[in-house]
């Protein structure tokens, strides 16, 4: 028996959403297949998109009402970087973590030859990589090539952060290209790229197939950093406030369900299907449980917070996290000083809509919009919330701190994150 109270207030009950075949599209798939959308009065159709560009354009053109998006996507679309300039907003983060960096087995052998410590030390890996790059330059060999999945993506920024950690300049010392996730393994096997940064399951898949070695996870780069968001156009959000909140309630409930280890088996069966992620269910189940395959024929690495859907206030759209991403976009040369980052972040994140949806579910939500990012080395408690929320470590590789209150839009930036005094 469906509870129908309040459905009359929905501006529309029929909604079409887009997603990209990655593990973190799970909240949308679960909200549909486990009936969370229906519970909130919604009839949702999900469409798998062939590319981030297509997903963005279809949201901008109104073919899709909303989508599983890269966190940088609503920022880039609002600023008019690439494609149609359409103001977008996000009131909900879908997950933390789940990215990784993989290198070819050949490059991995070279890294280990430089420094055997690389096997369990990210900074040792990046230093060894810098030594290999220097050797190649001396020998006049072509630069190493690394791929991310989209120019305005966490994958691009995390790859740059990782390269910079070893002292490499991502724009000068290596070649960076964009390759669709499904093509990454093919490119790596063909030797067209030497490594890549991508979301799950495409790192572990390379490891189990013996074509790559996972050298870092998002957890090594930005512990519990935000990953995908639920994004809509500002115009759609303004016309459909109640439907928007109903979607958020369903997605948040799906995220709570996904965090429960008892549901990982069922979730992996839903996600493994050819029309969804199209990867082995056993691999997906292992990743949901934080068991990562990093090397061929080796036992998995255990990282309990490899992918987080709800705990640690994961779904809250922190403005400070969007500001951090805008800072990364500046360092990548994608935006100049003409763009006011704080004002752009404030336009794009919608914490008040999240708080309303969370309150309707009786869940706690942060009462502040910003937090000092990447400062906590151990678990901590967020007291500026409707009820205290247990939080997790959020360190950045190299230990730099990001304090949003000290953000200076006019300060000159370098491509790296590491060499400036904080």
């Amino acid at each position, binding site marked *: 028996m*469906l509870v*129908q109270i309040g459905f009359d207030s929905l501006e529309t*009950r*029929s909604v*079409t959403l887009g997603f990209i075949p990655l593990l973190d599209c799970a909240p949308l798939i679960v909200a549909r297949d486990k009936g969370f959308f*229906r519970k909130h009065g919604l*009839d949702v*159709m999900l*469409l*798998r998109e*062939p*590319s*981030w*560009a*297509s997903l963005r*354009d279809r949201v901008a*053109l109104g*073919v899709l009402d909303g989508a599983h998006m890269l966190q940088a996507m609503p920022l880039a679309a609002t600023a008019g970087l*690439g*494609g*149609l300039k359409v103001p977008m907003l996000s009131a909900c983060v879908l997950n933390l973590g789940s990215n990784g960096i993989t290198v070819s087995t050949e490059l991995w052998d070279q890294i280990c030859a430089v420094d055997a410590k690389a096997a369990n030390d990210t900074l040792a890996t990046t230093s060894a990589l810098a030594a290999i790059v220097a050797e190649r330059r001396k020998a006049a060999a072509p630069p190493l090539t690394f791929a991310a*999945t*989209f*120019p305005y993506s966490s994958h691009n920024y995390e790859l740059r952060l990782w390269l910079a950690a070893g002292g490499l300049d991502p724009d000068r010392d290596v*070649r960076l*290209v*964009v*390759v*669709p996730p*499904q*093509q990454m393994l*093919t*490119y790596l096997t*063909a030797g*067209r790229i030497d490594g890549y940064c991508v979301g799950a399951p495409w790192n572990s898949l390379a490891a189990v197939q013996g074509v790559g070695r996972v050298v870092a996870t998002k957890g090594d780069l930005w512990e519990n950093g935000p990953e995908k968001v639920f994004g809509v156009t500002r115009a759609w959000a303004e016309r459909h406030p109640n439907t928007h909140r109903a979607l958020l309630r369903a997605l948040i409930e799906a995220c709570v369900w996904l965090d429960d280890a008892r549901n990982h088996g069922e979730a992996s069966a839903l996600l493994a*299907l*050819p*029309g969804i992620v199209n990867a082995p269910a056993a691999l997906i189940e292992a990743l949901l449980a934080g068991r990562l395959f990093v090397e061929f024929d080796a036992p998995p690495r255990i990282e309990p917070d490899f992918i987080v859907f709800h705990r640690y206030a994961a779904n809250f759209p922190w403005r400070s996290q969007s500001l951090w991403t805008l800072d990364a976009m500046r360092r990548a*040369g*994608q935006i100049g000083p003409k763009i006011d980052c704080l004002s752009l972040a404030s336009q794009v994140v919608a914490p008040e809509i999240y708080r309303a949806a969370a309150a309707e579910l009786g869940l706690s939500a942060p009462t502040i919009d910003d937090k000092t990012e990447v400062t906590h080395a151990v678990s901590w408690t967020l007291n500026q919330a409707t009820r205290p929320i247990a939080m997790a470590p959020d360190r950045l590789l190299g230990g730099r701190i990001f304090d949003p209150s000290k953000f200076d839009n006019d300060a000159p930036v370098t491509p790296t994150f590491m060499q400036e005094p904080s």
Partner: protein
Amino acid sequence: MGLRILLIDEDAARVTALREGLADSGYETVGVASLTDDLVAKVRDLAPDLIIVDMESPSRDTLEDMRRITADRPRPIVMFVDQSEDNVTAEAMRMGVSAYVIDGLNPGRVKPIIDVAVARFAEHQKLRAELDQAKMDLADRKAIERAKGALMKSRGLTEDQAYRLMQKLAMDQNQRLVDVARTVMALAQVLKPER
């Protein structure tokens, strides 16, 4: 001077049609790329002025990045929609055609080419739909018509949009069109407001 055109499309029949259409209008296609090609190398080697790409091609994300490339190319590649304010390109995208051009290229030179592409895509779409139609038996056709009607009503779609939506669902889920239609009808029954 003629513009150098690169086509990116996995559908061989459509590539042939598009190539012919462009040649008829006096435009030269310098190359065709598919998903298995090294697109970055291909663009560097062929140096096209204009790239016509199927909206459904995952290669679009690679092209989105070429606006940034300075080492490999003297001028960046941008999405055509960046350059032109009118709705024509948005309409083209709805028809499944997206275009990338060398930054600074005069939009007036590009539009006729996009028009040819849109016309050929539409024609191809129609042919495929007719072929599908011919293959279907009457009962299947009825189910699809009814599902199409239900989608048009519940989602405010045009007939063509409703049909394409079902086609896409069928492709995504590895199902026959008629099976998707039956699911759509079943869902429409279940979700009917109880009033």
